[in-house]
């Protein structure tokens, strides 16, 4: 190492001139300078090579990292499809909501009181929400304050620069515009729950998304929802949007959902709901020619608008646990004995099976002999009557006898064909098949054996069978149409706003029942006599002939009977078939009948005639009450 020859080795007696000469002559320093220059270059070359590695070799990976960082795909939620009734009246649309979100990683906890002041809530609330957000995720925005008012929203927006980690988003909520609640037909939307989120993530659902929970909102969710769009934005380290990424060239606009056109008539829906005051029960009115549901009422009900706001624990508890079961769709899920409304079915089955002929007469001594006068009793002593009179007078003895002459398997086969004991093909999600017994059922329920005495009650719509109002209405539609039974449905068609694409529900065509038309004529005639001379004579729609049948179904020792009523109208050209059951309200002609009759009149004539009889009917409809439920029930 030549450099080791340090200056001192060449030292001579010291003079300042010598030093200067030395300095000039010093190859030493020249060499050291060159070495130093080499060091400078070496260091910069090392740094340059590092840049080659970062910016040329690995640039792909770092580009990905930086894009993940700073470019956020923001989901742009589409407008949910709106809902119209059959007349084109807007029933449900959307209004904007404002939500405040916290991203804990960037949130400055010293600003808790500022945020609390802006939102006008106690500090502790903000602290709690922050903690909840933190527990969920540090890096993702939690919608900590959903549905704030516009004022709160604007205040937070104004002060946003002082609130790192606080962001806002606009959402939408449902707005209900008509007097008709139609809670069970429409259903409601809520934020998607954790379980559903897990399952439906592949379909693009994310936390905080709204999803239809019942009714058509649920059935038609894939249509109503629309297509989520994407916006790519540059966000800063605090998660705040700085500007669109690449001026938005990669953005995909959202596409609104399909608008729903219901078969429901909001006017008669509203009327039917109002007539159910102080009552529990269900009503279904449909167009017998198509199966289109004109009105579907279940009471008690709930306000679907409740779910557009945060639902308090108290409200939720009521909705879920109260005896009234407001969320339960009594029109389609509640099984009840049909009572005498069942008799037209029995007549049709017996005629088709040849158990009686149109002219067969049976004798009614006031009871069926099987019960020796103690059970299986009739409401009157009808003497020798044919099937038409039996329907008109609602003779129990006659229909007990028909049940005696058949077997439960034939019975259940016919009942199933009429839509009982099975689920209907429909776009109504919430429905129950009810119960129609066959021999297997009886064997299961009565393992020690059973006799005809166990099944004879089925002849008058009592005993081991339950049906729903929807099934009764559908059956009434089939009677009205002389044997053609349709799939009941709530939605007529869907239209996509931007493309005008039209979709119709995929439902089967109407089916023809295996009963001769002549027998239907006979039964329809009997039902017209009910309305003209029988239990329904007060319920006749002024000027419009119709067919109907009341029913009064026993429910238990100490409870008021269920009031049931089925009808169709007009008689010659049926446009509406209707079934109503009012729980624990007495005779069919007292509670269910007036409601059904008034709804049918409103539908057919657009008004309720101002006659003394109609006023009486209206009064009955409004004053009849369901016996209240109590905890002992």
């Amino acid at each position, binding site marked *: 190492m030549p450099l080791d020859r340090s200056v001192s080795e060449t030292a001579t007696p010291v003079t300042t001139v010598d030093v200067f000469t030395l300095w000039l002559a010093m190859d030493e320093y020249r060499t050291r300078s060159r070495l130093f220059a080499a060091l400078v270059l070496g260091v910069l070359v090392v740094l340059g090579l590092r840049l080659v590695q970062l910016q040329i070799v690995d640039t792909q990976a770092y*580009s990905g990292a930086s894009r993940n960082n700073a470019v956020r795909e923001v989901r742009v939620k589409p407008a949910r499809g709106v809902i119209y009734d059959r007349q084109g009246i807007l029933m449900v649309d959307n209004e904007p909501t404002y939500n405040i979100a916290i991203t804990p990683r960037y949130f400055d906890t010293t600003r808790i009181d500022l945020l609390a002041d802006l939102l006008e809530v106690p500090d502790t609330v903000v602290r709690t929400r922050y903690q909840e957000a933190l527990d969920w995720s540090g890096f993702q925005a939690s919608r900590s304050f959903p549905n704030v008012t516009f004022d709160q929203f604007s205040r937070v927006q104004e002060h946003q620069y002082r609130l790192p980690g606080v962001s806002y988003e606009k959402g939408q909520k449902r707005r209900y515009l008509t007097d008709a609640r139609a809670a069970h037909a429409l259903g409601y939307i809520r934020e998607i729950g954790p379980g559903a989120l897990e399952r439906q993530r592949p379909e693009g659902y994310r936390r905080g998304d709204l999803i239809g929970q019942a009714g058509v909102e649920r059935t038609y969710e894939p249509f109503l929802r629309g297509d989520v769009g994407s916006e790519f934005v540059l966000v800063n380290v605090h998660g705040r949007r700085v*500007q669109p990424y690449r001026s938005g060239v990669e953005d995909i606009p959202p596409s609104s959902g399909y608008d729903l056109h219901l078969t429901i008539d909001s006017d008669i829906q509203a009327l039917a709901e109002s007539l159910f005051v102080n009552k529990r029960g269900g009503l279904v009115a449909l167009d017998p020619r198509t199966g289109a549901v004109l009105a579907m009422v279940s009471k008690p009900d709930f306000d679907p608008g409740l779910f557009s706001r945060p639902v308090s624990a108290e409200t939720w508890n009521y909705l879920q646990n109260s005896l009234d079961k407001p969320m339960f769709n009594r029109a389609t899920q509640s099984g009840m004995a049909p009572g005498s409304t069942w008799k037209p079915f029995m007549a049709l089955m017996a005629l088709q099976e040849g158990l009686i002929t149109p002219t067969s007469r049976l004798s009614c001594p006031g009871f069926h002999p099987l019960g020796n006068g103690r059970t299986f009793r009739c409401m009157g002593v009808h003497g020798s009557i044919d099937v038409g009179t039996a329907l008109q007078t609602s003779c129990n003895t006659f229909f007990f006898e028909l049940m005696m002459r058949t077997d439960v398997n034939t019975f259940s086969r016919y009942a199933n064909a009429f839509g009982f004991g099975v689920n209907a093909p429909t776009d109504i999600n919430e429905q129950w098949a009810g119960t129609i017994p066959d021999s297997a059922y009886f064997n299961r329920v009565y393992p020690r054996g059973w006799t005809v005495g166990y099944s004879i009650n089925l002849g008058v719509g009592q005993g081991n069978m339950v049906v729903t109002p929807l099934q009764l209405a559908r059956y009434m539609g089939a009677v009205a149409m002389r044997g053609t039974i349709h799939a009941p449905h709530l939605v007529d068609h869907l239209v996509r706003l931007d493309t005008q694409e039209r979709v119709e529900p995929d439902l089967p065509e109407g089916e023809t029942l295996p009963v001769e038309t002549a027998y239907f004529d006979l039964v329809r005639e009997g039902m017209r006599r009910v309305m003209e001379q029988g239990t329904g004579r007060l319920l006749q729609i002024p000027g419009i002939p119709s067919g109907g049948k009341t029913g009064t179904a026993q429910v238990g020792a100490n409870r008021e009977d269920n009031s049931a009523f089925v009808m169709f109208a007009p008689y010659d050209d049926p446009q509406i078939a209707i079934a109503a059951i009012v729980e624990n309200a007495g005779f069919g002609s007292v509670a269910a009948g007036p409601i059904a009759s008034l709804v049918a009149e409103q539908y057919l004539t657009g008004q309720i005639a101002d006659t003394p009889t109609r006023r009486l009917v209206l009064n009955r409809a409004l004053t009849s009450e369901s016996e209240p439920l109590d905890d002992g029930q």
Partner: protein
Amino acid sequence: MRSWTWYKNLDYLTIFLWLALVVIGLVAIYSTTQGPAAAYLLDTEQQSFQRQLAWAVICVVGIAVALLLPVRFFQASAYLIYAGTILLLLAALVFGDEINGARSWIRFGPVGLQSAELAKVGTLLAVAHLLSSKRPGTDNVRFAVATVALILIPAVLIILQNDTGTALVFLALIPIMLYWSGLPITAILLVIAPGLAGYLAIWSTWAGWGFAALFTLGIFLTTRQRMLTSLAGVFTGGTVVAFSLILTKILQPYQLARILSFTNPEAEEYRTGVGFNLVQSKAAIGSGGLFGKGFMEGTQTQGRYVPAQSTDFVFSVIGEEFGFIGSLLLLTLFACLLLRLIGLGMDMKHPFGALLAWGTVGVLLIHIFVNVGMATGLLPVIGIPLPFISYGGSALLANSAMVAIALSLHMRRDDFSIYGY
């Protein structure tokens, strides 16, 4: 022999390089504070560009003043200036404002000065003065000790101010100034080698041991001196042992994380904490690619993902927005400036001027290496600015002053008394 054409000796290339670097710095600062995200910044941050511009103008005036001063002024006042900066350091320690955890700021009315930056100038002047008075035949060791002492005094004060990064610059200056003091190269290597061994030991103890063995062997093969060889072994091996002890036994976990995180900042335990700066800085530089994302178009920069992006991590802005081409241009400009300053030193026929120029190169080189090395993940995060580029008036002033003094001495190199001292 004063000439009216003194300016003919002025080195315009250095002035041009200085100006180019300052302009690049202003461009980077403009991008960080005037871009689309500016609305989210505090007012004081938004004014960064204007402040830095004002500082640049002050520096131009300062350079002019330095050029007007006679050479004797710098020599005569070297110790005085040194003493003054030491007093400033003490004053900052006692009366100073604490900013970012370091008590190094002194306020003069509206202007805040970082005493540690100014201390670099004073120290450099003092050391150059000291070493230029060294006569051949004088004891190397005495001068070496005096040099180390001159540097250690401000370094210790700065450590007390809690500004470890700047103190490390002073420590790194020691071997460089010893090199210029004429100390044998082997001795310099003995000072530098433990540093390298320690650096490698952070990556891996085995690498540290490997380096220690190779270095010791190299010393033995070149010098065949048992004494030197054993010193080399003890220094390097001892450092590796010391580092592994410090890393495993002495440091608190959070301190350890700060040091270790640069070797793998993306690791789960670091990426959101101590490694965050580095992850973001590397993402910024790496994603710049060959041509960069364009002025005010860097997503990392405009999104403010890299903390301290206008100060210590300013290189990430240039790397992201101007890419490899821009970064390389910057490094090339630095290389030109440093090599030119070495050349100026060689031009000067007097050790004071030469030592000052070369010392300036040393100071700048340490800053550039540590700063860019840190921003690119080669070195642990040590908070020191990139000369002429980072936002910060004191640093710009101090670095410009060193260059200006070197320029002034070079311009008036013929005025040096042939008696020198």
